[in-house]
């Protein structure tokens, strides 16, 4: 309990900054949305965009004159931000102890490495869930009140999908930080994986013959187009996500338990 609370406390500031940035992104979105509402210019412009540019904005044939349609375009970048947060948090919560050399203090308390890792994992999950809620609530408050049709159902779907990605990438972060002795290496590997899979998700949309790769990038599992315009959640993808998260968490324990700590 003490480690869990200690972690939450030490992340207060950083969490606040991430939250505010997200709310700001959403708020910028609504400002733009409202300014273009009423004249159809925005949706005309969007529909006339070349497909490759559309892809960069989520790729779907969204009706950008509706709040949820507009939000979906905004969403892929919000999601990328939130996933980066989750991944960095997963790496950081483990590796900061070695970076700041506080690991010697922590692990000379009477507590097993497993317990340390479990508490840190819980603190990570708490924060990603809270960030998800902050985003969900601020989006609902900001977008829903400015939309004729309620967007809550669609939005909840997006948030659930995003939460699965957050769990997946933070678990991956925890795993890499437990595996690697050098905290810088772990951090750069994790960020590279986030960016590569993100770019992959756009490329697979752009080139039809790359489509088979879309199974390899989690960003395609729960994107707005699939969730809102197409088939919705696919059980297979949910299971892959859960399976990989559990695998990463399991491996993080395995490696953290047996490795030398860098001091």
């Amino acid at each position: 309990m003490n480690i869990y609370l200690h972690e939450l406390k030490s992340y207060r500031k950083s969490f606040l900054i991430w939250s505010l940035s997200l709310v700001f992104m959403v708020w910028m979105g609504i400002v733009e949305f409202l300014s273009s509402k009423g004249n159809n210019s925005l949706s005309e412009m969007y529909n006339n965009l070349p497909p490759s540019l559309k892809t960069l904005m989520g790729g779907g044939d969204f009706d950008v004159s509706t709040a949820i349609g507009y939000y979906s375009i905004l969403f892929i970048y919000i999601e990328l931000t939130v996933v980066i947060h989750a991944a960095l948090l997963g790496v950081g919560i483990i590796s900061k102890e070695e970076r700041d050399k506080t690991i010697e203090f922590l692990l000379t308390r009477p507590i097993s490495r497993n317990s340390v890792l479990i508490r840190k994992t819980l603190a990570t999950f708490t924060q990603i869930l809270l960030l998800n809620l902050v985003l969900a609530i601020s989006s609902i408050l900001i977008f829903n009140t400015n939309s004729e049709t309620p967007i809550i159902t669609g939005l909840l779907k997006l948030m659930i999908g995003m939460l699965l990605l957050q769990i997946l990438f933070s678990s991956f972060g925890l795993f890499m930080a437990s595996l690697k002795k050098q905290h810088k290496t772990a951090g750069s590997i994790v960020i590279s994986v986030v960016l590569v899979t993100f770019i992959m998700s756009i490329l697979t949309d752009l080139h039809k013959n790359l489509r088979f790769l879309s199974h390899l990038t989690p960003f395609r599992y729960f994107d707005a187009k699939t969730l809102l315009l197409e088939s919705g959640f696919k059980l297979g993808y949910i299971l892959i996500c859960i399976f990989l998260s559990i695998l990463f968490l399991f491996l993080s324990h395995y490696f953290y338990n047996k490795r030398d700590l860098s001091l």
Partner: protein
Amino acid sequence: MSVIEINNLTKYYGKSRGIIDVSFNVEAGEIFGFIGPNGAGKSTTIRTLLGLIKPTSGEALIFGKDCFTEGKEILKDVGYLPSEVFYYEGMKVIDLLKYSASFYKKDCSRRIYELAEIMDLDLNKRVEELSFGNKKKVGIVQGLLHEPKLIILDEPTSGLDPLMQQKFFELIRQENQKGVTVFFSSHILSEVQKLCNRVGIIKEGRIVKIETIENLRSENYKRIIVETDTVLSHDYFNIEGVSDFTTNNHTYSFLYKGDINLIIKKISSLNIKNITIHEPDLEEIFMHYYEKGE
């Protein structure tokens, strides 16, 4: 009963040497000095004892339990003061100490204030505002607040002013009188000499000697300095028991351990100008172990 039991402990970091085949015991209630030059393997040994690193081979036991796999149980009764203290920035000293105390299932607050008083520590400062010496004081309070049965000290006095060093030694002595075992690692001989009953000397990863301070002193080493008026052959004093041999012009200086008659006969056959024979100080004996084999 042995509090610490180390059997054939070896640790390699990849290919580089940590410690090789280290074995010794620390008995309950003693103050054991662990001495050696920098890089000899003192910290490696301590980190293995604390379960921070995994031995390549051999075993380390504290209270009869394995240090790497049963650390959680062991550490309940171990207080550790690292050579360099690092704490969470942004925390107040008192919050840090309370955080540390929260890991032990007992009320430590009385002891925190007691120790802070003795060490003259300001509890309301933030960790990052503290000087090196003050951080060390936090380390001392943090290492003792749960009233451990074994105290492991890794170069504890660096950064402390002489007055604080004295208070600290007093504190350690008091704990020891209560029956607490102390493992004291240092490269400063005088403080080990002051405090310890027994010492282990480590050099280049290997234990070279384990001896009581008393025996070390009474081991009958003599420092002999002879001045002659002729040049002696290079190996004149190359007999058993002579070590640390240096020569300067016609002056020959060495440590001798063995039958005093032998060496006196050897010297008496020379035409000497001057001679001094005295007890070497402990420092010299240690240097002798440090340098042996080089």
